């Protein structure tokens, strides 16, 4: 093989949003660089300027239909922080439950529909068969379980949020509607079944993961900092403190949601519509930080529910703290999922959940405020500045996929170097590169709400010639 070559995978498949990957090969056919692109843009940050605060939550929800509940939570929290609103304990519990529904709905989709086919079939499987629909044809009960688990998350959104996607009940000040006891009991019943399926899914995930682990332990193990919300050192999604761990596992910083923007900064690079976010005050690349399932496991000393705590301990024992290899996102995601089911059940057991004090009156005022939650893909922050008339003056959103953007790119390159040698780019090898991207469950919709993003893989030679496009 002579000359540099370039391989494109376009579209990168089984991810949410449009993606594209370019891998550049040197004269020997070895990887010299690789990029993961976002190629959409929508302009939320611009057209929302001047918008009335009360319309913000349900419009920002449209940034992402996959994790809309998380966006609404961050949005109302930011507004409540400006208005200095203290919501009731009932509202806080219902919101946490909605967020658990969000995690269950998303993670069951990612596991069964997006990543499972990679583990279920061999890497050399016909790509036209390597998908969830084929699994459903072969094992209908797996399909049924996938749907049952995902539906439980959707039902939480529907019953409490009043819609399955883009919920409407959560507003600044709390929730419009209380939960009825009949509804609570129905959901509680379903929580039992969901918990069982989540545990089975985790066991299946671990078993299949073990078969692939040797192949992937060194693929994409770039060492970075990790960030997640915690409550008293434990795993937490709705409120708490933001904790950052360095690549050695030492605590780097701990701060309140209101100070988030002082600790995280954004930068743009010329080849992608998605911005990069990193820790402020640290040089690039020292400031690169990862969020999401693995970060949550790394940063949390414990999990507040029994089964998740056992799994977390096992995870730390087996992979060290912090764990670095990208594929561990797939593993850690299943612990998130189990926790969300356990926690949902715990919340639903509480009879106080049906109290009617779900809403307090808000007193609009001018100012700046930040709302932070753990979204399925990691720490999500919305910062708004409102005028006295209650209109949006400025807005800054830090989205998990943006935070992970740097690590995704570094790890895609790392994985490409691990799997591609001497110009051998059989589809099975390229799919392994895509698996590293899938592990992040990147959400291009979220990362590029300003632009319209797509992600694709190209492999080019060192003169930039296109060698192969996975597209």
């Amino acid at each position, binding site marked *: 093989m002579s000359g540099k070559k370039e391989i494109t995978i376009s*579209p990168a498949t089984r991810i949410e949003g449009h993606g594209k990957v370019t891998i550049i090969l040197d004269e020997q056919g070895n990887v010299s660089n690789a990029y993961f692109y976002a190629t959409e843009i929508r302009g939320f940050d*611009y057209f929302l300027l001047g918008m009335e605060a009360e319309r913000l939550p349900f419009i920002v929800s449209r940034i992402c239909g996959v994790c809309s509940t998380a966006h609404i939570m961050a949005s109302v929290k930011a507004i409540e922080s400006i208005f200095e609103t203290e919501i009731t304990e009932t509202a806080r519990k219902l919101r946490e439950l909605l967020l658990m529904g969000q995690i269950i709905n998303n993670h069951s989709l990612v596991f069964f529909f997006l990543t499972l086919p990679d583990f279920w079939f061999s890497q050399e499987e016909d790509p*036209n068969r390597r998908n969830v629909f084929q699994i459903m044809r072969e094992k209908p009960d797996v399909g049924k379980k996938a749907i049952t688990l995902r539906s439980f998350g959707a039902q939480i959104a529907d019953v409490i949020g*009043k819609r*399955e996607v883009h919920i409407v009940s959560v507003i600044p*000040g709390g929730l419009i509607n209380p939960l009825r006891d009949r509804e609570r009991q129905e959901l509680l019943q379903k929580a039992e079944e969901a918990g069982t399926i989540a545990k089975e899914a985790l066991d299946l995930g671990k078993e299949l993961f073990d078969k692939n682990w040797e192949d992937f332990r060194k693929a994409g193990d770039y060492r970075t900092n990790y960030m997640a919300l915690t409550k008293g050192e434990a795993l937490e999604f709705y409120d708490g403190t933001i904790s950052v761990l360095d690549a050695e596992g030492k605590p780097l910083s701990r701060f309140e949601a209101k100070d988030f923007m002082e600790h995280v900064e954004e930068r743009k690079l010329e080849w992608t519509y998605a911005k990069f976010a990193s820790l402020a005050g640290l040089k690039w690349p020292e400031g690169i930080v990862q969020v999401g399932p693995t970060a949550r496991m790394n940063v949390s000393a414990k999990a507040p529910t029994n089964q998740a705590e056992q799994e977390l301990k096992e995870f730390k024992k087996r992979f060290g703290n912090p764990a670095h290899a990208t594929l561990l996102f797939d593993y850690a995601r299943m612990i998130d999922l189990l926790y969300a089911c356990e926690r949902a059940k715990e919340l639903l057991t509480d009879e106080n959940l049906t109290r009617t004090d779900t809403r307090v009156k808000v007193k609009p005022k001018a100012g700046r405020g930040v709302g932070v939650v753990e979204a399925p893909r990691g720490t999500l922050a919305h910062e708004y500045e409102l005028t006295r008339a209650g209109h949006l003056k400025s807005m800054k959103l830090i989205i998990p996929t943006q935070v992970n953007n740097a690590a995704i790119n570094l790890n895609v390159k790392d994985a490409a170097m691990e799997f591609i040698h001497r110009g051998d780019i059989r589809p099975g090898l390229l799919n392994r590169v895509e698996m590293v991207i899938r592990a992040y469950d990147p959400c291009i919709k979220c990362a590029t709400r300003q632009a319209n993003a797509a992600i694709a893989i190209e492999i080019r030679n060192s003169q930039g010639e296109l060698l192969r496009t996975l597209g």
Partner: protein
Amino acid sequence: MKVSIISLTCCAGCVSSFLNAGEALLDVLSEEFEVVYSPTFVDLKEIPQVDLAIVEGGVRTETDEKLIREVRAKSRTLVALGICATHGGVTSLGNLTSVKKLLEKEYSLLDSSTLPELTDLMYPICNFVDVDYYVPGCPPMPLLIIHTLKSIINARPPQRHTSVVCIECKRKIVPKKLDRLYGIYEKESDPELCLVSQGFVCLGSVTRDGCGAPCPRAGFTCFGCRGPADSLLYRERDLYSFLVKIISARTGIQEDTVKEELHRNPFVFHTFVFSKFERSKARERVI
């Protein structure tokens, strides 16, 4: 039946909604319904010839435009799923400002060889291709999607919803005398009474039914995500005045004051953006 699922510029909420249909989804998947192309679920990288293409999202980049033309050419039946595909959706709010200009300034460093050019506006797909069925909604409810798909699978015309959201909302319409309109967070709503009668700007009276009215039933104003009802589709220019009249009649507030409030509400936009929607037989194709 070979099926492709395509996402253009959107939030992916419509396909998400489809996947929330629970057992009804298993029903559809177990029928003659083979998803052969879908970047979200399937690894095939080239767009194949299919019997049915389900398209979510609208056109915001040249890539979107190229894609939708290719998809149309390779599909027997094409369904526009959700408000972005049928009307342009939330991203169309960018049509009110010079988003394209702002973005070009902000991203002026961008390497145009690797990134697609933006179109001048956000467009619904019917501006570029012929659409067989429009299923508006943000997103459409899971069962509405399922019923539509099942009809198409069985070669029957899908059941259409032609009336307004008020039909599905149980609230009582009572004319009131109010001094002003209210934002949804300003006061708690009476659970029995029509939201418009309470001074909230609910668009249920002009918006197509078929969603089950989840928003107004929950005390949240309808924001028109199903687009205009049949009766209003051909009176596009009158739609705005019609809405003003209804709100004024139910609240006793002067029409001019109502107009002012509507101007401040960009979500009215959903209802009014129908660009070339009324052409040909579009009306018979809205589900």
